[in-house]
């Protein structure tokens, strides 16, 4: 949502002359660039357990971050007050990085973008505001969600549901006199149930998260989440650990996008490449996976958890092709790395809050659909595994080794899904896994879950993928 400029100036008690004066103070000792990041975030939460919504609350986080760059070196400080004296102290602390002007300037200092944000281009309009709506308005949603889950499966013994929302106002200004503002909503629902059957227990979770207002809390969403939660629980009880080892893996459409996030997305973040640590540091322009594959990091999907009107450096949100026809074509850049590589920033400069300096981060990362059919990819595998639900992943940037944890899936035997499996970790190497993609189906899905990336700071992201077949990954087992 993009309000008018006065809304942000009033909220943070600043105006353009104050912003300019603060920037000049921050650069008084030298430095090549300074930016200011004002933030006002309102959080709300409601928690249902044991059949009642008995806990909830609101939280406020407010402050301003001041960053001074001296070439590629960063000085950063923040204040939880926007009183002039506090901001000034903050600017002087950040300025300690700089002792003299330097030649290297971050992107935008020579060709600034001074246009104002365009409300017509808003990627997350809010129809029903979270702020100002009493929390009690949302109680029936959680209560009905629990009832629907229990109606769908009598084996449910516990339901735990959490509704969390946040609305963040940001105002950004820099030494190139670029002024941007934005209001970012986020609504998230997580739902967990514990099931019991014949003395055995199992749990299952699902979540939804969107940059939307409270209009997202519909009966349709209740039905969708409850159905998703109880779906496959029979298989969860029947699931076994497979025999471990290296085998073909078919990754189902949607949440399997975690593969892209861990196997290559982090390695494409340009800070790792600028420092030479990434395994993809010298691969630009090279074929890194089979022809025909496009891999994208996208900040433009309406209402998506990873979307941004502007990144946290004031660069417009955009769609970035990292891989085109199998060739590595772009890293994910913030202003520092863009200047280092002599390219335009890609709108990936993100931060958890005003407490952090921005660094290159993913948004919504996905692969475009291919031509194959999912069933045909499964049919190709004599002995392997199909996976479709995950909880978390991790990568070692230098070595390229990545892992992701599979909550559920199936063995593939002679081209057919057979025994359900659960609770296994899968490990592979990024460049090797990309090179071993044998088929891509025509069923791209972007997962609607509440994915959060934890590289130094936590930021909301999303991921997606069509069904893909990878020749060999190592599967944990007995």
């Amino acid at each position, binding site marked *: 949502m993009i309000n008018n400029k006065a809304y942000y100036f009033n909220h943070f008690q600043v105006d353009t002359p104050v912003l300019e004066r603060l920037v000049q103070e921050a650069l008084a000792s030298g430095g090549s660039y300074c930016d200011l990041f004002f933030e006002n975030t309102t959080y709300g939460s409601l928690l249902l357990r044991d059949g009642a919504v008995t806990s909830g609350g*609101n939280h406020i986080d407010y402050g301003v971050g001041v960053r001074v760059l001296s070439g590629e070196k960063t000085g950063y400080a923040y204040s939880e007050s926007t009183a002039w004296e506090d901001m000034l102290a903050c600017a002087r602390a950040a300025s300690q*990085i700089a002792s003299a002007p330097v030649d290297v300037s971050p992107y935008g200092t020579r060709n600034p973008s001074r246009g104002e944000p365009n409300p017509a281009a808003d990627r997350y309009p809010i129809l029903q505001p979270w702020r100002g709506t009493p*929390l009690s308005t949302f109680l029936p949603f959680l209560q009905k969600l629990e009832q629907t889950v229990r109606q769908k499966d009598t084996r449910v013994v516990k339901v735990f549901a959490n509704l969390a929302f946040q609305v963040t106002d940001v105002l950004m200004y820099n030494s190139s006199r670029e002024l941007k503002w934005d209001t970012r909503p986020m609504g998230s629902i997580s739902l967990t149930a514990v099931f019991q059957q014949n003395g055995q227990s199992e*749990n299952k979770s699902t979540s939804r998260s969107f940059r939307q207002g409270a209009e997202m809390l519909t009966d349709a969403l209740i039905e969708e989440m409850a159905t998703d939660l109880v779906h496959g629980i029979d298989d969860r009880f029947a699931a076994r650990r497979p025999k471990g080892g290296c085998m073909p893996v078919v990754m189902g459409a949607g949440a399997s996008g975690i593969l892209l996030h861990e196997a290559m997305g982090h390695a494409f973040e340009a800070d790792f490449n600028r420092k030479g640590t990434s395994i993809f540091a010298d691969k630009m322009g090279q074929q890194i996976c089979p022809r025909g594959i496009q891999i994208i990091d996208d900040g433009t999907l309406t209402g998506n958890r990873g979307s941004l009107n502007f990144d946290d450096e004031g660069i417009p949100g955009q769609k970035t092709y990292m891989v085109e026809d199998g060739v590595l074509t772009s890293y994910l850049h913030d202003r520092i790395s863009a200047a280092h590589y002599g390219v335009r920033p890609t709108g990936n400069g993100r931060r958890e809050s005003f407490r952090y300096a921005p660094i290159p981060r993913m948004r919504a990362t996905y692969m475009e659909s291919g031509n194959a059919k999912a069933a045909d990819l499964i049919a190709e595998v004599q002995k392997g595994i199909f996976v479709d639900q995950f909880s*978390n992943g991790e990568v070692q940037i230098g070595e390229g080794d990545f892992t992701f944890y599979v909550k559920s899936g199936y063995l593939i035997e002679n081209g057919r899904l057979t025994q359900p499996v659960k609770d296994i*970790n899968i490990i592979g190497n990024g460049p090797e896994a990309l090179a071993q993609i044998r088929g891509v189906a025509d069923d791209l899905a972007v997962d609607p879950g509440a994915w959060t990336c934890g590289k130094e700071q936590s930021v909301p992201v999303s991921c997606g993928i069509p069904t893909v077949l990878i020749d060999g990954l*190592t599967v944990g087992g007995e």
Partner: protein
Amino acid sequence: MSINNIAASLTQAEIGLAQYCLAFAGQAGAQKVRITLTKSLMNLIGLLNGEVDKTAHALDRSMQLQLFVDGRYGSFSTNKLEKEELEAFIREAIDTVKMLQADAYRDLPAPERVAADARTGRELGLYDPAYDTLTAEQRREMALASCHWPSGAIAEEGEYSDTVFDTLTIDSQGLYARHTETSFEIGYETTVEDAQGNHFSSYWWDAAPLLQDLKWKDCAAIAYKRAMAQMGPQDIEGGKYTVVVDTECASKLLTPVLNALGGFSLQQKNSFLVDSLGKQLFPEQLTILDQPRTPGETGCRLFDSEGVATREMPIIEKGVVKTYFLNTYIASKMSMAPTVEDSTRVKVLPVGGCKKLEDLLAKVGNGILVTGFNGGNSNPVTGNFSYGIEGFLVRDGKKVHPVRELLITGNFLQLWNNLLATADDARPCLSKHIPSLAFTNVDISA
């Protein structure tokens, strides 16, 4: 005022504001109130390839309020600590709590359970007065002096930071509990390259409440040495192995056990240790203690987040589960006596007489030494786990070559019942005092 001169610890004015808010919330309609006021001041110097790459200075203050209103409960926080704004915030918070459903189990802890010996915040000796005189130039000199940046490395990233953390918890029943500590930390990650262009990286770090105890001089060199040791990994066959888990990463295998003893997991039946109290589920040789009150030790605290006094107690004694972690609310729901909200300073007592990791490897003979985990997770209900690991193949008690892209899979109860021995090598900078651990009969996928 320069930001470097801002009072690092809570001031009397800030404490007075919290006490005012406590009284104001009572007058505004809350029958019971708990307020936690926190303040932290951090200085950070980032290093890249032998030079200062980043500086950061951070002051945080926040007030958290737990409100008990008409049999209902809500939790609120803000970092806007102006009196008038706080009054409006509290009024709105109380109105919000009134909209929630009633919960008869919510209450403050009984006054006799809360800490009465945490008045100044410095009782545990975790505040270093040296912090007060440390200058920006001294920080910079120490950070730069810690660099190693050998010619064979691709990148050496380091970070020095020091923090003052001060927290005060008060409630409407008279609780006044304060904890103040300083923390000095240094960490390095170094990346190296072999002749084929393969990258290998590793890290090392240290931390201490007192600056004089921080081992900052060797940190970067150790990270480089560990990275070099990763070169030349070789494949191994999957199968059953004896596995030694280095103290540096051993908490990965204990934390899920402690989580399973947490009240919330137990009450929601989302734990593989439901109904485990008093039962011998672990091997008789295993004893795990909580020692939260040892002066000078990293991670020690005199009270938990409710203000309840911590105490020295066994968590698992000779294999028997001796305690759950139950706060006032969960204990009431489970009709059990409350304990503390969580473990504080866990200590696994050594098993088998080995002192150092090398002794433990010699005892094991053949197996795999795990020096790091790469992702993975566990099922809280079943206790099944699967983690990526890296480390070394061990033959005749010696490291033979690095191994990576391996997976360790099993069940926590079975794993801990296969505990062979431990070393006695837990580093003082770790808040969980867990030595290197050796387990037999562990499934490795390769």
